[in-house]
């Protein structure tokens, strides 16, 4: 029989306002096995924890039940409290009477009754708890960063700086990500390339950092501290160890009408190409869909001109297997496709562009050499209209995103301001729903655009953009403040497209068993307290894969993720989850059902000799669980027909005891 202590937390008024905490501790005090029951204002506070510690000692408690907030919040706290008073951490159960009781009910009598029942269920469970000891597993002291944008780069640099090895996997031929395509950055207007490329070079030169560019993660197995990852290094058809990045090949390549992704298709590249001058690694890549040699076996010019002899048409994809202790996801974002936005004439007129395209048009390294020219006729535009929230904050089903893309207000202010600064002869209009400019010097920046640069901000939405035969774009919108319809004859329209997670994120999340929200952004372990960790141990989040972010936020989060990784890799051993499956060999049939449903390959079989009745022996095949590998999902426990397989901490009898306590009539 356990000696159980019950501790009911008021959580200030969070619980106490709706649940009669005194009545709960009184009622639970009468439950069989309960030898001590009390309530306190903040059980998680030092004073509260001391009440628990003292009770454990004074009443020789063998188990405790804390009726408080969600175990997702403070289970770990109270486990530590118990341990520090000499009670096994796994003799603690939490009754969630805040998130799942006081916060969702208004009727005090009902909430109190429910709290008592939840307390009883926890008591019933703790009666059947047994002390568990966590095993240990070693930590592979290397991190994997998936995505080589500014988020991935910063995370990798910070981890490497602490002395740990890092691999960056980037699916593009170069690292750098979206930031390489950006001209200037708000609110300081310094040049993106100037601040990014040194970091890219740092990565390339850091001997702790290993870049797998033009590569993708194919398979992830294992668990925190011990991930086994297969990386597919896609064939570049260029030997990266020989290529000097001289660019001779790209100049000679006859296939020169390939839309250039880097400039969003606004100009062309060759079949063999280096995305941009500062690419890291600066290695040429052959586009197998465009190269005549690879498609038809005719040409071979690049091989002829390459003095380094780096061209290798026979190169194949290569699978690299690596071990990691931690994985950082930094898969970033993409602007949404605007093909569905015919009301803005995006697919009808070349002069309706997305903000990122506009970014390339104004970039000195872009297709126009930085001169603002209309894509349709290369003429200088005089009237520009910027449309905000294209696909963001959209409630319409099936089109657009419900969330705010966060960065658009600021970069639009930047674009408008730069236009006016460089070309004072232009008129710039911005249609907006709200201007959101929280952030250091952000609002000041936006106000400068309006006040100093004379950008016309119009609160209201654009209803329609109609391309006219004379090349003008007729923009029809509403001005909500003036309460009137607005018609503008524009030369260019720039759409601030919503941003969304990269398409590779979802399959990656499945591989990592990391959770995602409905928008395919990775979910953090706790919205406030664990913002850079995934709920899956050993998986960390960096940058816009977790939610829309600008560069400062991304870099800050990247550093935070790195510090978490460093904290993990600094450990020599990790404590395993002791709530693992185990098989009662006396009941095991050896039928292999459990093995089939185990996602971790944690179950194997041995032939074991058993003593049978009347001094005989028999050899039977029985399941054995590798507790270091088992993650405790419990799939095997249900697959097992004989009930030989059970889960520590969530055993059949414990769950049924909870069921019994809850359903008791």
């Amino acid at each position: 029989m356990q000696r159980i202590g019950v501790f009911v937390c008021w959580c200030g008024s969070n619980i106490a306002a709706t649940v009669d905490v005194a009545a709960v501790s009184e009622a639970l005090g009468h439950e069989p096995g309960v030898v001590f029951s009390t309530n306190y204002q903040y059980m998680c506070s030092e004073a509260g924890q001391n009440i628990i510690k003292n009770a454990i000692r004074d009443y020789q408690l063998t188990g405790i039940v804390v009726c408080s907030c969600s175990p997702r919040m403070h289970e770990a706290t109270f486990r530590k409290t118990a341990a520090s008073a000499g009670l096994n951490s796994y003799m603690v159960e939490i009754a969630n009477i805040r998130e799942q009781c006081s916060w969702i009910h208004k009727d005090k009598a009902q909430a109190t009754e429910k709290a008592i029942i939840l307390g009883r269920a926890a008591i019933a469970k703790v009666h059947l708890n047994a002390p568990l000891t966590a095993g240990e597993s070693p930590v592979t002291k290397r991190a994997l960063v998936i995505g080589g944008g500014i988020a991935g780069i910063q995370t990798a640099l910070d981890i490497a700086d602490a002395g740990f090895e890092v691999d960056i996997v980037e699916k593009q031929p170069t690292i750098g990500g979206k930031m390489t395509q950006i001209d200037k950055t708000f609110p300081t207007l310094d040049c993106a390339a100037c601040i990014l490329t040194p970091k890219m070079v740092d990565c390339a030169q850091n001997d702790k950092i290993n870049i797998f560019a033009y590569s993708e993660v194919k398979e992830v197995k294992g668990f925190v501290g011990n991930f086994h990852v297969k990386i597919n290094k896609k064939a570049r058809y260029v030997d990266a160890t020989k290529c000097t990045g001289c660019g001779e090949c790209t100049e000679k390549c006859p296939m020169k009408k390939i839309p250039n992704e880097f400039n969003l298709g606004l100009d062309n590249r060759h079949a063999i190409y280096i995305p941009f001058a500062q690419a890291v690694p600066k290695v040429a890549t052959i586009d197998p869909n465009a190269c005549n040699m690879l498609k038809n076996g005719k040409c071979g010019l690049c091989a002829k001109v390459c003095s380094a002899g780096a061209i290798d048409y026979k190169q194949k994809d290569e699978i690299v297997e690596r071990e990691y202790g931690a994985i950082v996801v930094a898969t970033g974002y993409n602007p949404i496709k605007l093909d569905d936005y015919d009301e803005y004439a995006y697919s009808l007129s070349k002069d309706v562009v997305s903000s990122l395209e506009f970014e390339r048009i104004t970039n000195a390294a872009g297709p126009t050499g930085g001169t603002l020219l209309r894509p349709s006729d290369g003429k200088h535009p005089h009237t520009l209209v910027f449309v905000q929230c294209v696909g963001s904050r959209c409630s319409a089903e099936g089109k657009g995103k419900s969330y705010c893309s966060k960065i658009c207000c600021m970069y639009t202010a930047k674009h408008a301001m730069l236009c006016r600064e460089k070309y004072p002869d232009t008129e710039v209009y911005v249609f907006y729903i709200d201007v959101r400019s929280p952030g250091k010097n952000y609002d000041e920046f936006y106000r400068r655009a309006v006040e100093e640069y004379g950008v016309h901000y119009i609160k209201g939405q654009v209803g329609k953009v109609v391309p006219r035969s004379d090349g003008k774009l007729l923009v029809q919108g509403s001005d909500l403040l003036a309460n009137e319809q607005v018609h503008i004859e524009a030369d260019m329209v720039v759409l601030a497209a919503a941003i969304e997670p990269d398409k590779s994120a979802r399959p990656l999340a499945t591989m990592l068993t990391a959770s995602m929200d409905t928008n395919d952004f990775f979910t953090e372990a706790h919205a406030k307290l664990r913002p850079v960790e995934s709920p899956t141990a050993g998986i960390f989040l960096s940058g816009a894969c977790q939610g829309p972010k600008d560069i400062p936020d991304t870099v800050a989060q990247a550093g935070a993720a790195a510090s978490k990784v460093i904290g993990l890799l600094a450990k020599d051993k990790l404590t395993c989850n002791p709530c693992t499956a185990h098989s009662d060999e006396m009941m095991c049939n050896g039928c292999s059902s459990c093995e089939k449903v185990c996602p971790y390959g944690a179950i194997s079989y041995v032939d074991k000799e058993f003593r049978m009745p009347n001094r005989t022996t028999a050899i039977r095949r029985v399941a054995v669980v590798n507790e270091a590998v088992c993650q405790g999902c419990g799939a095997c426990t249900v697959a097992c027909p004989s009930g030989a397989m059970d889960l520590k901490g969530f055993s059949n009898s414990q769950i049924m005891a909870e069921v019994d306590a809850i359903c008791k009539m």
Partner: protein
Amino acid sequence: MQDVNQFKPKIVAFCCNWCSYAGADLAGTNRLQYPADVKIIRVPCSCRVNPMFILRAFQRGADGVILCGCHPGDCHYTTGNYYARRRMTLLFSMLDYLGIEKQRTRVEWVSAAEGAKFAATMNEFVAAVTQLGPNKRLEDLRCKN
């Protein structure tokens, strides 16, 4: 006004630790109301839920049992909810075959971000079970007080 004699169903909700339990917490954080008749049991994964537990709940006096897990494809353990899905489909079909009201059992996929869905699901499920009245077909008279 609420009728004091109105039937209050007993509902057991098995929630996986990673998605649905967190979704239930989020419903709480957002102060989304659902009836106190629902009591949640935390399990590591929807695949931990043995049909035995569901029958046990009915035996002990539950009027409805709902299982919530991560959306297919989002399981924290990769594949757990796929097995749960098959098991529960077959179990529910069998219960229906035995003439036990199918509206008493349900599976819903609720992510950690879907606090609103969690509350809405519970409201709807409680309403459906309330309409059915007390569980008679899978009760164990010995467990009545």
